């Protein structure tokens, strides 16, 4: 991990790049942004108190001090976190960074109804602040002293993930003058190697390098400007990267062009594993998947290699919940329902369905319309039909898909789901199977998994601040969930880096395990 200013030596500095995203990021405001599309650029614009090392693989999951001088001091009861803001730190607009800005940053998250609210609800007084609705009110659990730069946070309960929370983009520092409004069209200044200098929604936004940015272990970036264009079709993006009109595309090239890219442009294309879990949720609150055998049948029948082909090979088959790269991951040996890299056993599955007495039951499969997803849905629907169900498919726009299946009234029986972590912590995955977290709407426990043992296990393990010590216990919970077929996982997606000829691909395409391609590593030949 000796990557002090890692990128500065390799590759040239200067120049500008034009890159593409498929749709306007959900927000260009750190308080609100909550997708990998927005986190990828915002990571290099808004540095939180803590951050992750700009490095690949396991090394990249290491927490390092960001705006904070050092990692926080945690009290013995695990409820108090304190850190000090680095001295002399400035925002991209030249104004000094103050300790009280931190409280303002968190207030914005809580006040703006951000998706990240839940992360900070454990702070003392946070719920009162939210309910009060008054942005000027104080959050009692946050003490900031501008004179010393000291920040102290008090939690109501110990939370082993809170250091990671302090490293999420939501905690990316913004000045206390930032209004309590979505700032996507005029993003506020931040502390980071880049600042957003232009933002035309749905068209493009531009990151420009910040003079004088200096935080140890956070690279300063190489190219002067990075302009992100919104180009709706990945096929066009890929064609333009091939033709040199774009320098980089965030999304994977469409399956259709992969073969050609791999054949002719392998020198500027790579695939890398993500800590993600792709699975079919199986709703155990309603028939037929309230029946364990019926769920098992699905697990037995699934052919991950078939789905891998639909992904154009960009899927690493696996059979458990916590993906590799995340503490607590442990490949079960053997997988309870057969090797994920081999074909499924349709006959056995048929038998199980028969035995469970659910043959011929109507099942509606839900899928979203993002790339490849309908096709997976079609595969899955046919598979369910093959093993004896009477299945149809319902395809819902990606923008409302998760709300739809997360609504109790939808009564979604089964369908596609995938999970990318908010931070490198097994809890981030298993929380989805926490029965106590089930909500009537916006539920993310799509399968309504409610196993007291698992619920308790999660609650206990989350209290432990040091994940490493309880990694095998997390793995145990994982195994329990899949043995009971609470879900039908089939693998982790592999994402890609595909760049134009102009880019110095070999030296300048660092892939961070959580944030993906690291813009500070980008450089031109």
């Amino acid at each position, binding site marked *: 991990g000796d990557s002090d200013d890692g990128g500065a030596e390799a590759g040239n500095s200067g120049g500008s790049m034009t890159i593409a995203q498929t749709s*306007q990021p*959900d*927000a260009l405001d750190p308080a609100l942004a*909550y997708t990998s599309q927005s986190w990828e650029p915002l990571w290099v614009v808004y540095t939180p108190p803590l951050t992750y090392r700009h490095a690949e693989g396991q090394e990249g999951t290491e927490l390092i001090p960001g705006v904070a001088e050092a990692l926080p001091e945690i009290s013995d009861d695990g409820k108090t976190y304190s850190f000090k803001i680095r001295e002399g730190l400035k925002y991209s607009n030249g104004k000094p960074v103050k300790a009280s800005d931190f409280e303002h940053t968190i207030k914005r998250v809580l006040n703006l*109804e*951000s*998706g990240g*609210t*839940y992360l900070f*609800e454990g702070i003392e007084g946070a*719920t009162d602040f*939210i*309910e009060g*609705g008054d942005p000027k009110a104080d959050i009692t659990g946050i003490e900031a002293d501008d004179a010393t730069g000291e920040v102290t946070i008090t939690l109501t309960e110990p939370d082993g993930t809170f250091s990671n929370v302090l490293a999420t983009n939501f905690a990316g520092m913004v000045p206390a003058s930032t209004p309590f409004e*979505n700032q*996507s*069209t005029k993003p506020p200044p931040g502390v980071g190697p880049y600042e957003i200098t232009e933002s*035309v*929604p*749905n*068209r493009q936004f531009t990151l420009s390098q910040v003079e004088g940015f200096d935080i140890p272990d956070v690279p300063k970036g190489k190219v002067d400007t990075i302009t992100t264009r*919104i*180009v*709706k*079709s990945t096929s*066009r993006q890929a*064609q*333009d990267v091939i*033709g040199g009109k774009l320098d980089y595309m965030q999304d994977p090239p469409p399956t259709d062009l992969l073969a050609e890219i791999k054949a002719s442009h392998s020198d500027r294309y790579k695939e890398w594993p993500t800590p993600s879990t792709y699975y079919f949720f199986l709703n155990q609150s309603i028939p037929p998947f309230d029946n364990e055998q019926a769920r098992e049948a699905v697990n037995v029948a699934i052919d991950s290699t078939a789905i891998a082909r639909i992904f154009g090979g960009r899927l690493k088959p696996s059979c458990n919940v916590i993906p590799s790269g995340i503490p607590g991951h442990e490949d079960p040996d053997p997988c309870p329902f057969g090797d994920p890299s081999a074909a499924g056993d349709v006959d056995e599955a048929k038998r199980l369905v028969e035995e469970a007495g659910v043959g011929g039951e109507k099942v509606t499969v839900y899928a979203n*319309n993002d790339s490849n997803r309908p096709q997976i849905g079609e595969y899955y629907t046919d598979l369910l039909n093959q093993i004896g169900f009477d299945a149809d498919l319902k395809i819902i*726009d990606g*923008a*409302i898909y*998760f*709300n*739809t299946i997360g*609504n109790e*009234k*939808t009564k979604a029986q089964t369908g596609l789901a995938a999970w990318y972590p908010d931070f490198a912590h097994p809890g981030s995955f298993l929380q989805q199977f926490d029965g106590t977290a089930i909500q009537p*709407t*916006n539920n*993310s426990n799509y399968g309504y998994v409610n196993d007291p043992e698992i619920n308790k296990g999660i609650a206990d393990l989350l209290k432990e601040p040091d994940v490493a010590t309880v990694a095998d216990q997390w793995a145990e919970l994982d195994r329990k969930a899949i043995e009971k077929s609470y879900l039908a996982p089939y693998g982790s997606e592999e994402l890609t880096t595909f760049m134009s000829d102009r880019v110095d691909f070999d030296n300048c395409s660092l892939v961070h395990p959580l944030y993906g391609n690291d813009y500070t590593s980008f450089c031109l030949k």
Partner: protein
Amino acid sequence: MTRFVVRRLAQMLVVLFAVSVLTFLIFNVIPNGDPAVRMAGKTPTESQVEAIRADWGFDDSLPVQYVTTMEKVLGGSAISYFSQLNVRDQIVEGLPRTLSLAVGAAVLWMLAGVALGLLAALRAGRLSDRLLTVLALVGVSLPVFWLGALASYYLGFKAGWFPNGGYVPLTEDPLDWAHHLVLPWTVLAILFIGFYSRVLRSNVLDTMSEDYVRTARAKGLSERQVLLRHVLRNSLIPIVTLWGLDFGAVVAGGAILTETVFDLQGVGQYAAEAVGQLDVPPVLAVTMFGAFFIVVLSTVVDIVYAILDPRIRLT
């Protein structure tokens, strides 16, 4: 005239009102989940949802909600449920793109349609007429989205003659603007070229058998004068009005498929995406904008028609 316009304006308001109510109802009466919950993001809390609900007035009765929403839409302060972006800004952003597409295509289809239609009429019954008929019918039978996708890939990406989609503002680089739009224009126009050439052909044939054309010949006008001043002029009147209506329809959303296929990101594409997301404010706004455009143009067309053809009365 003034009274006609006033009456049409009143009718227009009624139609627009009905369109807005209908759109609103389509998305509100039919059960499709709670927009507040949808807006709240990945892991919302109950209080958050409540807050959104209060802010957008989702708890109010439908008529009140309608009024609230329409106030926002018409006042230009409506924002998308999802992107939180101002809807009017987005429409204003997309409009030059949609207009560039529509105007170019409309000019193209008018010119080509008239040329081919006239040619077919003059050659009526001969082989070239049959050929043009078949071509025209093929034209009206080609689905835009299919043709567009093929053209964009084969002529754009494969052959590299044209950009494979996208838009460059006219003000930025007029040549590049046109270069980006050649394929979309053509693809969108083909349907109308087929259609217009057929209409013009039959208009011309009908007009040629009119008594006043015989009169024109009896006056000793040259065939060219007869054709231009009498036949074509009269045959074009209905076409001009059609043109107005079609142009309105194209701007108002008829170009959705073309915009989507060529990723022009105009108003139509914006609406299509919003519809998929059940994002009511943009859909309402675009529908209102589109309906407004259609209604205004049809009024204009009526007036133009009455000017071109003095026999027509405005009712």
